[in-house]
């Protein structure tokens, strides 16, 4: 029963991921990606990672996708994009470039699938068949202990990265006025 739920969630994740790539309307892409992240959160929950499922919903669903949706609506990209003057498909690159990209994706995907399915028989089989510990595989005490001892340096680096991003994004997205009050042109 639980296994069946995993396969349903996996199917939803794959279909919505295809929807992200194929959708004509960027808003549909955003909503598909949100559904994809939601089904990935279900998979994390089924696999025994409650905390990761929670932050998947909170950070991806709550923060990142809202940011995407905000930009799509701010720039008013919701409608269908008109064809450009060359009459090209507004969605995809020209045929040669698309075929090349698709070939790279298919080669990468099939290579990793073959590798996974061939290598799977060398994986160590757990004796108790993935029995779930009571507090899951990402028990918060163990997670916090590792985060603030062994991984304290990456933790600090992440905080610096977030600060630098906040400042950098403010500078990037600030509307640059062409003329200062003194009447001089800014570079």
């Amino acid at each position, binding site marked *: 029963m*639980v296994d069946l*739920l995993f396969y349903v969630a996996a199917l939803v994740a*794959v279909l919505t*991921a295809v929807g*992200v*790539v194929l*959708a004509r309307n*960027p808003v549909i892409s*955003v909503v598909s*990606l949100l559904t994809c*992240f939601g089904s*990935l959160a279900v*998979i*994390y929950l*089924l*696999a025994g*990672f409650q905390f*990761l499922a929670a*932050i998947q919903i909170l*950070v*991806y669903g709550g*923060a*990142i996708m809202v940011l*995407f949706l905000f*930009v799509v609506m*701010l*720039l008013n*990209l919701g409608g269908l*994009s008109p064809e450009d003057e060359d009459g090209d498909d*507004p*969605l*995809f*690159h020209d045929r040669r*470039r698309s075929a*090349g*990209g698709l070939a790279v*994706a298919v080669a*990468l*995907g099939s290579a*990793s*699938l073959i590798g*996974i*399915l061939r290598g*799977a028989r060398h*994986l*160590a089989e757990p004796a*108790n*068949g*993935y*029995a779930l*510990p009571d507090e899951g*595989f*990402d*028990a918060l005490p163990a997670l916090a202990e*590792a*985060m603030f001892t062994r991984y304290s340096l990456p933790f600090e680096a992440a905080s610096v*990265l977030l600060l630098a*991003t906040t400042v*950098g994004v403010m500078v*990037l997205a600030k509307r640059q006025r062409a003329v200062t009050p003194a009447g001089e042109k800014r570079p």
Partner: protein
Amino acid sequence: MSVPTEHLLALAAILFAIGVAGFFTRRNLIVVLMSIELMLNAANLTLVAGARLHSSTGPLQVDGPIFVIFIIAVAAVEAAVGLALVIALYRQKQTVSLDAFARLED
């Protein structure tokens, strides 16, 4: 759940390939950024599958979940910077099509 690890890894590989396809074929800059998020999520799923296998066969290991948390932080940063760049580029050309930005000097 008793789903074998290779099925989780196969799902991650499929999602990554779809992300690569979107990254190389779409013209819309915002959809390209969303494809990158999809690829980062496939990487997260791989780490989760590995952490589950290692924690089931031995003592509890939290390295996988910690890496997932860091990847989510980096993904948030990447989305913020990428979308700020999209807004800055949109001000220049009033479009988010990648063709308009093939030559960045003009």
